[in-house]
């Protein structure tokens, strides 16, 4: 069974072309609406993002191409075990609750632009800010390259051109589109295009469900078929004890790591008001039920229909393509609906890639170039440098995505959350406990990363006793940060309100308390 979609006709290609041109137009509008040549304006849109746009950008950024491709494939392969994805996507919003109220308040008070700004203000440790920034950049660089490879694969075979050519053209074309609208409009262009992409995604998920139910029958029928076959009965049965441990591991890892995505943290800074942020997050709490649950249903129904192809023939990211090809072949309406769904898939990939790219660019510009190389540079200079860094990173990511075309990046992507969760003590504990000190936090971070990488690459399967290696690293990280801080209380000098930077970690709490 082939995994490629049928090539789109002129109408389908025109629709995709119109969608891509609309993104460029939005970039130009963002450029026209710029208010100043400042970092806050370029990287946070002047901190004026309203409810609808904030909700849609949070949604489009959080739900990437992985949600559509990999989640469908996972549900196909593991059945209802993948319900854990519903819980970990909800857990991200739960962990936001621990983060957003104080972080939003502090970001307004101290004009934060990057996650590094919070760390610098809270802990006043240059080496720690540098290490944490590099950690975040490395973690989400993998993610950016993964999205770009998925873009190339999405266009592969679509135009009828040979695989290599279509893949390279896909990566280059979509890279150029992102580069143009992001350089023109910065954060405004990114969140406005995210809004369009978020709407397309919502429509895409609804369409996907309707098409699959119409073509293959209800979820109840699929469940009965799976339960009746001894080979697939386990897909609808409750998970074993070991699998439940894996559920908890996923919920903690993705919940904590997803809330600490730098692009997610920056959306907290960019909200027009606390009320806007609260309302957007409240709606976000329900979106896993309309998205993750849909792709699980699609994966389960597809498995019931194609249980004969087994899991060996269907890689995780191929299942959705197989389903779409079948729908394309069923009718003319099916072909048209798949065009819209394909636009939604592109939207999922591009909205995540552009947000990640802007976040990388802001951290490299402000936290590395601006903090260590040119500390006295003007805002206008840093903004110009930021645009160049965006172009350089995007070009490098595209080149790597083309060079690694036949490589499986899943292992690298898995490490993303292992690294990101090591920031948890600095954010989750640091925001709520004034005695947390920079030295133990930095030491905990280094030890946590080391343990995660050693276990991740050194242990067969990468998950000792069913738990992600990042959780072992995080446990050691928290212990070092908390015990180290308790054994090393702030000295009177640190508490002096007039001290310049060292007392920041204490002052910040004195001011933020009601």
């Amino acid at each position, binding site marked *: 069974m082939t995994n490629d979609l049928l090539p789109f006709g002129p109408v389908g290609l025109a629709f995709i072309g119109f969608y891509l041109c609309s993104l460029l137009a939005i970039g130009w509008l963002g450029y026209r609406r710029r208010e100043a040549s400042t970092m806050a304006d370029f990287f946070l849109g002047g901190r004026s993002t309203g409810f609808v746009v904030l909700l849609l950008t949070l949604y489009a950024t959080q739900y990437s191409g992985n949600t559509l491709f990999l989640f469908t494939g996972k549900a196909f392969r593991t059945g209802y075990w993948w319900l854990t994805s519903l819980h970990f996507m909800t857990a991200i919003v739960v962990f936001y609750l621990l983060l957003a109220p104080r972080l939003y308040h502090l970001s307004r008070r101290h004009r934060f632009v990057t996650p590094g700004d919070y760390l610098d203000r809270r802990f006043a440790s240059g080496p720690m800010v540098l290490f944490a920034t590099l950690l975040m950049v490395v973690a989400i660089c993998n993610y950016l390259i993964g999205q770009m490879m998925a873009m190339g694969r999405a266009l592969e075979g679509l135009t009828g051109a040979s695989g290599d050519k279509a893949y390279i053209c896909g990566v280059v074309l979509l890279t150029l589109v992102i580069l143009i609208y992001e350089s023109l409009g910065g954060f405004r262009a990114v969140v406005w295009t995210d809004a369009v992409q978020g709407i397309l995604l919502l429509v895409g998920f609804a369409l996907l469900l309707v098409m699959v139910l119409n073509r293959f029958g209800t*979820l109840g*029928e699929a*469940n009965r078929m799976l339960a009746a076959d001894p080979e697939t009965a386990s897909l609808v*049965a409750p998970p074993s004890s070991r699998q439940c441990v894996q559920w908890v591991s996923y919920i903690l890892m993705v919940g904590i790591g997803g809330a600490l995505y730098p692009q997610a943290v920056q959306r907290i800074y960019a909200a027009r008001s606390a009320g806007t942020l609260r309302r957007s*997050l409240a709606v976000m*709490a329900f979106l896993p*039920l309309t998205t993750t649950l849909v792709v699980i249903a699609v994966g389960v129904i597809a498995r019931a229909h194609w249980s004969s192809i087994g899991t060996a023939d269907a890689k995780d990211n191929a299942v959705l393509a197989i389903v779409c090809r079948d729908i394309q072949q069923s009718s003319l309406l099916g072909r048209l609906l798949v065009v819209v769904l394909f636009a939604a898939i592109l939207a999922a990939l591009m909205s995540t890639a552009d947000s990640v790219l802007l976040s990388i660019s802001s951290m490299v510009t402000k936290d590395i170039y601006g903090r260590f190389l040119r500390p006295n540079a003007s805002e206008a200079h840093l903004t110009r440098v930021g645009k160049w860094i965006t172009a350089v990173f995007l070009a490098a990511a595209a080149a790597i995505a083309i060079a690694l075309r036949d490589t499986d990046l899943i292992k690298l992507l898995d490490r993303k959350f292992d690294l990101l969760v090591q920031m948890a003590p600095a954010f989750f504990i640091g925001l709520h406990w004034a005695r947390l000190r920079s030295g133990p936090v930095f030491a905990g971070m280094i030890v946590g990363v080391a343990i995660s990488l050693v276990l991740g690459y050194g242990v067969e399967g990468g998950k000792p006793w069913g738990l992600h290696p990042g959780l072992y690293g995080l446990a050691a990280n928290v212990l070092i940060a908390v015990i180290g801080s308790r054994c090393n209380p702030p000295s009177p000098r640190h508490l002096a309100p007039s001290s310049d930077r060292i007392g920041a970690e204490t002052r910040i709490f004195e001011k933020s308390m009601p």
Partner: protein
Amino acid sequence: MLVVAVPWYWSSASTQQWIGMPVWALISIGASLGVSILVAWQLSRPWENEVDSEGRDQ
């Protein structure tokens, strides 16, 4: 809610279904909905310092 959402208390051999869905899966989805409602309720109340933040923006 996490305790209810993770189906550790079900036997792997359970085959109970209700309205065409495995009962354990329905309960797990229901727990997720419960978490979403709790989070939304929590977010319906103003945060501490919210007035201060809003005032600073004006």
